[in-house]
């Protein structure tokens, strides 16, 4: 370390950064991520660092970005920090599913592997209470808790996913017929024998990465204050927190991330995705994702333990926490504001809670921000039509976590599609609304009854997010 030329005030210089800590911005719906929001509105709108991030933070963000973007390769390889792919996996990089840091999509016709969509597997509750308490599910005994349709050379991939749709339709009060589709999933080429007779399948499309550190920074007590598990206020909306295992604190805590809110923090979600999706071990997920019957997988070379060092996991976590939410340049336009009224009148905001205040976040940039994610981070019964019938921790087979709506209007430009919901079945926001049931049945029916103008305004508002 060559301090010679800058010794005199080196220590002082290194503290200058503290002056750049952002002052908490006042509430501005045009900046849904508070001071972290980015002006970018193009295909890179989801890939920007928090705008108020320090230069040091930007360096960590850049390093994390590299490990989020570049592919992992099979061991052994010269690149020791990037080897250890698989043996079984869904893709070889984070970016492979979180395309442009945005959403994945259901498999395209003719696509051999699903890549940005995966299938979770489990079997109904057994006597294995300990496992259930720490993993939330009982994994399918031969294939584990996730189907992996890629593998390294010499190991057989688990299966192929046959993805088809069945179609139905809904008629709006205006007379417009809206076609809906629902995936019908079959597994073929099962490489390790038949699955358990009671196996439960749940398809999941990779969600967008924006604003995750802000959601993490909402104080748990504020989220819990909105919970109403017994619906004691009688509004038909319960809102239940998922209570999930925190593998670092070794206790049950509020779940926030994933389609069923089964992970408590960005770091644990990241480690779980490295492990389940890419086959990369870390200190949080120490053993390879091979089941005992998968002998080729067990015998395959690994990338040294852990394949992902604590330091690199922290950098990828840092990156994932600091992806900025795009600004909403149209937020104050008349039609948008009208649509926002419709959003409230039809009860959407009961679960898609517009505004939150973050507390202490993972960095100063994320702390004390007024944000507009449009989620309550709670579980809601969404009815039989959407149900995956696969419980996860406290989430029932009917429940899903309210997904954030910020960035909704940017999916088309970032990802080239607007396929929404956990399995991408909805081809646009209206279809997604029409799939709402259960606690949201009443809101959906109100949307069906809207006049042409009011419906258009609602959709313009959603597209402005």
């Amino acid at each position, binding site marked *: 370390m060559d301090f010679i030329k*800058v010794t*005199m005030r080196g220590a*002082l210089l290194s503290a*200058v950064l503290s002056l750049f800590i952002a002052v908490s911005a006042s509430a501005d719906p045009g900046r849904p991520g508070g001071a972290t929001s980015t002006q970018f509105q193009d295909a890179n709108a989801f890939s920007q660092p928090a705008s108020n991030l320090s230069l040091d933070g*930007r360096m960590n963000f850049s390093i994390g970005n590299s490990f989020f973007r570049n592919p992992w390769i099979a061991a052994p390889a*010269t690149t020791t920090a990037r080897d250890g792919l698989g043996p079984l996996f869904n893709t070889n990089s984070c970016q*492979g599913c979180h*395309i*442009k840091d945005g959403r994945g999509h259901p498999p395209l016709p003719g696509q051999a592997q699903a890549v940005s969509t995966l299938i979770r597997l489990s079997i109904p509750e057994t006597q294995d209470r300990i496992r259930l308490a720490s993993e939330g599910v009982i994994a399918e005994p031969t294939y584990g808790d996730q189907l992996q349709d890629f593998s390294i050379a010499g190991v057989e991939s688990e299966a192929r996913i046959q993805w088809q749709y069945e179609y139905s339709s809904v008629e709006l009060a205006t007379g417009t017929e809206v076609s809906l589709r629902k995936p019908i999933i079959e597994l073929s080429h099962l490489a390790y024998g038949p699955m358990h007779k009671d196996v439960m399948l749940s398809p999941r499309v990779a969600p967008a990465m924006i604003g995750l550190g802000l959601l993490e920074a909402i104080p748990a007590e504020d989220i819990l204050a909105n919970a109403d598990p017994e619906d004691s206020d009688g509004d038909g909306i319960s809102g239940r927190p998922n209570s999930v295992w925190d593998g670092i604190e070794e206790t049950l805590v509020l779940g926030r991330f994933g389609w069923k809110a089964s992970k408590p923090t960005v770091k644990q979600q990241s480690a779980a995705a490295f492990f389940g999706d890419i086959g990369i071990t870390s200190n949080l997920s120490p053993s390879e994702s091979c089941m005992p019957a998968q002998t080729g997988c067990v015998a395959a070379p690994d990338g040294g333990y852990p394949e992902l060092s604590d330091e690199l996991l922290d950098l990828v976590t840092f990156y994932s926490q600091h992806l900025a939410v795009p600004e909403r340049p149209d937020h104050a336009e008349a039609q948008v504001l009208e649509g926002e009224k419709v959003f409230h009148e039809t009860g959407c905001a009961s679960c898609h809670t517009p505004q939150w205040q973050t507390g202490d976040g993972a960095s100063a940039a994320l702390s004390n921000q007024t944000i507009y994610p449009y989620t309550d981070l709670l579980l809601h019964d969404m009815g039989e039509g959407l149900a995956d019938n696969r419980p996860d921790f406290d989430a029932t087979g009917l429940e899903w976590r309210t997904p954030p709506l910020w960035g909704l209007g940017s999916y088309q430009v970032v990802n080239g599609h607007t396929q929404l919901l956990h399995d991408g079945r909805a081809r646009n926001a209206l279809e997604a609304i029409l799939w709402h049931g259960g606690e949201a049945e009443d809101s959906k029916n109100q949307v069906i009854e809207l006049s042409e103008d009011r419906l258009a305004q609602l959709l313009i508002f959603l597209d402005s997010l």
Partner: protein
Amino acid sequence: MHKVFTRQRLFALPLYFIYLGYSACTTAQALPTDSELNSVGERYLELASASFGAALEEALIMQQAIEAFLDQPDLETLGAAKSAWSLARKPYAEIEAFRFGNLIIDDWEPQLNAWPLDEGFIDYVDQGSYFYELGNPVGQANLIANTSLSYGPQVLDLTDLSADLLASLNELGGTEANVATGWHAIEFLLWGQDLNGTGPGAGNRPVADFALTEAECSNGNCDRRRQYLSAVTDLLIEDLEWGVSQWDAEIATNYQKEFAALPAKEQLRRILFGVGSLSLGELAGERMKVSLYANSPEDEHDCFSDNTHFTLLHDQIGIANVLQGQTGFAAPLTRGISVVELLEQYDADLAQELGNALNNSTEVIAKIAASAEAGIAFDQLIAPGNSEGAAMIQDAIDALFLQTRAIEAAAVALGLNSLAANTEGHF
């Protein structure tokens, strides 16, 4: 020094309080006026125009060398084309200091300089050593070998490998590694894959890949490879011309005009945020620290040509140019004053310190360049177990870290409260 990259150190509270004490003693100091800051902006615009002009000039020489190579492909003309590419990279690297602060340059840049790229998208690759993103449905598209490309429900017509077509294929399917154009596409076409890993040697593409007849052609499709190289070279020139036009003081509506009309402090913020981001996030982080972590030539910036050292060095020189207001590629600039000159008037010690930090970074990175020129290139320095190489790169990272600190201190001394973007009008 490793520890500086952890969050704990970033928000080290004791240092924060020490700084507040220091700050209290110096807040009485005067700050530059808007017209003084505008004069820094004026020099910056003159420098931008000179630097972009130099980048275009060298690239035109490269274009001639590539045309000569395509006219008569032999070892000599290929060597001359490669040399011209390497020489043209130097002034180009220096204009990277105008990125980050100026969104228009960030939007423009990917078509010229996107990296890393999945080379199987462009041409044949060695199957045993080629790794690409599996979510990338066209990572092995081989645009040169195929006249059509199926992607999902679309079928793209590749018959004519025109510049427009190639530009439209960048980031196909949302994968950033699908880079069809720019410096690194040209580099891959001239050098080919570097199959030497972290051992000595760069890419070694056969001259016969560009043969004038299919009979003499190695690896097939020579006519299309020639067409491709010619089209991406022309496109690079067109793009550089557009870049030059944005800084031209003679043009009535361009970015230069927009910049000159900005509030004085916003001008300074864009100048300093740009060089600070290049110094720390891009150079120290993405291009050096990542390579040290991964020990992988896949993370090397100019990986086909092993020219990484010169790009690093000239990126650093570009940072110094912006702060010192001069470039080695042009006669002395005279309009306005430089950041360092203004700083000298308000905090001479800090100006000295910033100058020292710039010189130190340049010297330390020059050692990496000297090593590469003596036969041990960047991809060998980052080889696993090369502790001497790792130390050399770590020294450069440390120097860039201190340099960035000095840039941040200069921002404070010149009256900026924040370097962050999105703060127009909120100083």
